[in-house]
């Protein structure tokens, strides 16, 4: 029989936080929520409090010298999670301002312990703990021993089976603060400001006894409260490619032929081409073909005026619910937020086909702070989507450079399983379009450069131009007949 203690993990009620914490909040842990002013510490505490408190095991919220409680009640009740009916039942506010002002830490501790003994709370919050610290420092009282106070508080709260949160403003994590040592958990909230954009980020710097998700995780504060965007869980074992490869029809029969019979299921496809080359039309056709076969799809549009750039087919599919639209015009998006939006639409519709139109718009939609890592972000998104089992078509605006053959401005071509490139060429005073399949991983495909045109029925792939050469240079020339002498 296993007699080791089992640490219960509490569901925090904050979307995404349990995942970031590595499975929830360890019961009876002693935690610090830290960060600069305005980063959401008190809100995070309240959201967890209202989610976890019950009349039998209430929450005690000690207000110290931080935010005046009257104002805290005023602002916190703007959030949906704030429940008036819980106050004085499952949630109790206790003001310790006068005890703290006196600067006697022993008295503060005594008050906290007395209330804890009276109500036997499951949760204890002290806001702001920083002010307890400062009040003790202004006193010349040698008995005020902060490390000892923190150590005792931690010990007492755990013994009374209370999960505790100290909330405080700390600007530097390198502070040699005793509570960093005593605390079981350190939740650090930050605000990253770059130009006119602000992104909220959360880091679990420490959480004893469980594997947290490392790094900075973006979150938003809305009227529903805090929402953390945890990175999408990746399937450790990706389903092996099954043979024969199942293929999706693109809706353009001759393009399917060029791809070797269609796009292998679960592949990511990059369609790169200059402005007006028909990338979005091909993407819409891809979704329409899916709908024709009873598949559902999701399209993420990152254009300035999504409603205007939609073609009629796509609008119809969205209207009928066969295609879900992810059209987040929220400012300062993070990759995890977009992935989460996409995945929830994919799950809702059991979608098999996903379109990102376009990567260029997607890059602009990201907060500036994430643009430096765009390649990495993109890689994570593609991995998250393909590991969810969907096939992804991404469009990429490509400036026509006739001197070299490039597929995307981000050096991201290696990320995708398949690539279609589109080009303009000049022939006899006309601007014609050509298209080629550059890559289809683990599959034979055509190497032809084919003319195509766009009409009311979409993309029509035509013939090659065997008598021309230098197509990729944009100004093909009539091929010279080579004659061998002799």
């Amino acid at each position, binding site marked *: 029989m296993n007699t080791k203690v089992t640490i219960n993990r509490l569901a925090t009620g904050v979307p995404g936080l349990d995942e970031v914490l590595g499975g929830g909040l360890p019961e009876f842990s002693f935690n610090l929520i830290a960060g600069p002013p305005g980063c959401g510490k008190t809100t995070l505490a309240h959201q967890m409090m209202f989610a976890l408190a019950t009349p039998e095991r209430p929450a005690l919220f000690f207000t110290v010298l931080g935010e005046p*409680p009257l104002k805290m009640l005023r602002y916190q009740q703007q959030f949906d999670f704030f429940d*008036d009916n819980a*106050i004085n039942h499952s949630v109790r*506010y206790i003001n310790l301002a*006068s005890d703290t002002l006196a600067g006697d830490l022993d008295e503060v501790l005594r008050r906290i312990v007395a209330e804890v003994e009276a109500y036997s709370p499951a949760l204890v919050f002290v806001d702001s703990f920083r002010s307890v610290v400062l009040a003790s420092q202004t006193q010349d009282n040698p008995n005020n021993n902060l490390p000892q106070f923190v150590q005792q508080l931690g010990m007492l709260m755990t013994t009374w089976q209370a999960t505790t949160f100290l909330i405080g403003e700390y600007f530097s994590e390198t502070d040699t603060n005793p509570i960093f040592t005593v605390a079981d958990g350190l939740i650090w909230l930050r605000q990253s400001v770059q130009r006119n954009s602000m992104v909220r980020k959360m880091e679990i710097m420490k959480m004893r006894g469980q594997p947290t998700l490392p790094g900075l995780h973006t979150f938003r504060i809305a009227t529903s409260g805090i929402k953390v965007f945890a990175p999408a869980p990746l399937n450790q074992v990706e389903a092996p490619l099954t043979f024969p490869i199942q293929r999706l029809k693109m809706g353009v029969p001759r393009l399917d032929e060029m791809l070797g019979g269609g796009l292998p299921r679960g592949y990511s496809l990059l369609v790169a081409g200059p402005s007006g080359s028909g990338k979005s039309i091909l993407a819409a056709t891809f979704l329409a073909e899916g709908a024709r076969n009873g598949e559902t799809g999701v399209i993420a549009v990152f254009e300035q005026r999504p409603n205007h750039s939609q073609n009629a087919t796509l609008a119809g599919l969205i209207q009928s619910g066969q295609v879900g639209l992810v059209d987040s015009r929220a400012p300062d998006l993070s990759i995890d937020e977009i992935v989460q939006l996409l995945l929830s639409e994919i799950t809702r519709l059991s979608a098999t086909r996903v379109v990102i139109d376009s990567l260029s718009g997607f890059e602009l939609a990201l907060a500036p702070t994430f643009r430096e890592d765009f390649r990495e972000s993109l890689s994570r998104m593609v991995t998250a989507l393909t590991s969810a089992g969907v096939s992804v078509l991404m469009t990429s605006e490509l400036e026509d450079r006739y001197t070299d053959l490039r597929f995307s401005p981000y050096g991201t071509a290696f990320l995708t399983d398949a690539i279609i490139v589109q080009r303009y060429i000049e022939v006899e005073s006309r601007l014609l379009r050509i298209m080629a399949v550059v890559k289809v991983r683990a599959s034979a495909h055509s190497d032809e450069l084919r003319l195509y045109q766009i009409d009311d029925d979409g993309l029509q792939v035509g013939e090659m131009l065997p008598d021309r050469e230098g197509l990729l240079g944009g100004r093909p020339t009539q091929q010279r007949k080579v004659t061998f002498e002799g």
Partner: protein
Amino acid sequence: MSALNEESRQIIAALAQRVGPNADSARIAQVIVSFLQAMEAALTPIIGPQGVAALYRRSLQLCASRHPRVAHISDRVQASLDLNALDSQLATESEADALYFGEVMLTTFHDLLASLIGLSLTSRLLHDVWKPYLSDTSAQENSP
């Protein structure tokens, strides 16, 4: 006073109920002060003594500016946050003025708090202050 909201009506009813018929000024003063003490007791643990004191002073000031009839009472006790001072002052007023002051002071305090933390939370925090003196208990259960 302007149109009374439901809570003000209840507060005034509770005050009248507790004062009872034919009460003299001293009795009225005592009831008003005990209501204020009960409000103080309900709020101090949550918003602290400084928070309650600030609400009390602001309520006195609002009463003085909005209700000239009892402005002199507010003015005289404003200097002191001591409820004993209010008690003594009210005992010297006419019964009608003392009762009128009680009505406007208690409802002003309530409305001030409600303007800061919302009506439903205010009602929840101060519920027990009026509850024992309301004969019609169903009227209070109208909060969702």
